[in-house]
């Protein structure tokens, strides 16, 4: 896979649009291109940011924040609530 093909695949990869059979080739190319490949993949995640920023913000109510901060202060960090069945 050329680096240009790798770049095309990387952009699909970060949005989860690579098909399973393409993932194998992409993984091999990722090893082949090493840190240059990883740097490029990291840059591709900027696409996520752009898509999110293109949306009109929809602010949540203050009640959501109050509840969140109450949970954070109550539980501390790294403790997740056991999920009910």
């Amino acid at each position, binding site marked *: 896979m050329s680096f240009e093909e790798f*770049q*095309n695949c990387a*952009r*699909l990869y970060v*949005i*989860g*649009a*690579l*098909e399973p059979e393409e993932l194998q080739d992409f993984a091999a190319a990722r090893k082949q291109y090493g840190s240059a490949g990883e740097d490029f993949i*990291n*840059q*591709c*995640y*900027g*696409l*996520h*940011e*752009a*898509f*999110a*920023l*293109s*949306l*009109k*913000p*929809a*602010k*949540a*109510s203050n009640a*959501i*924040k109050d*509840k*969140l*901060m109450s*949970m*954070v*202060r109550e539980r*501390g*960090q*790294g*403790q*997740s609530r056991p999920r009910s069945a």
Partner: protein
Amino acid sequence: MTSAVDLEPGAPSDVDLMLGIQSGDADALSQLYDRYNGIMRALILRIIHNETETDDLLQEVFMEIWNQAKNFAAEKGKPLGWMVTLTRRRAIDALRKKQAYARAEERLQAQPEQQPLAWVQNATENDIEAGDTRVLMAKVINSIPEAQQQVIELAFFQGMSQREIASHTNIPLGTVKTRLELGLKKIYDSLKELRDEF
């Protein structure tokens, strides 16, 4: 640029806030929430199309940011990118888990051609000022053909694979792939140009 939103002079950067969260500072999370809850909520809402579920998930996402902050590494990317990736993954998981996928698909099938317009419409309303980050992002996305916007919309906001998009739109798989590749490359290149300008 230290943040994707305009900050008051002297306000901590996004990275500063993430470092604060990593050290257990709840006030840092509070500030990050104030800064980005609107963007995260818009993203979740766009994916799962349900206000109540969106609010529940928004809360879960910020709890996850609080609990997983140690996994954020500034050298690998910006905090907003990390948060958006996490949020999108959680929202698409929720969409699939709740088996709402089929319902969303039915809704999309009813108006597939309106999706790209719906995406960009948000950014062309008069209530936003020129120079706003959202205007810039929307201009970038608007600059690609609608057919490419459509497949990117389905992949990014609905979590569809190339095959699912092909099946959903009756477009040949090869065409879906080409449209995705061309559209994403154009957006990527435009973003790079913007970054280089600032």
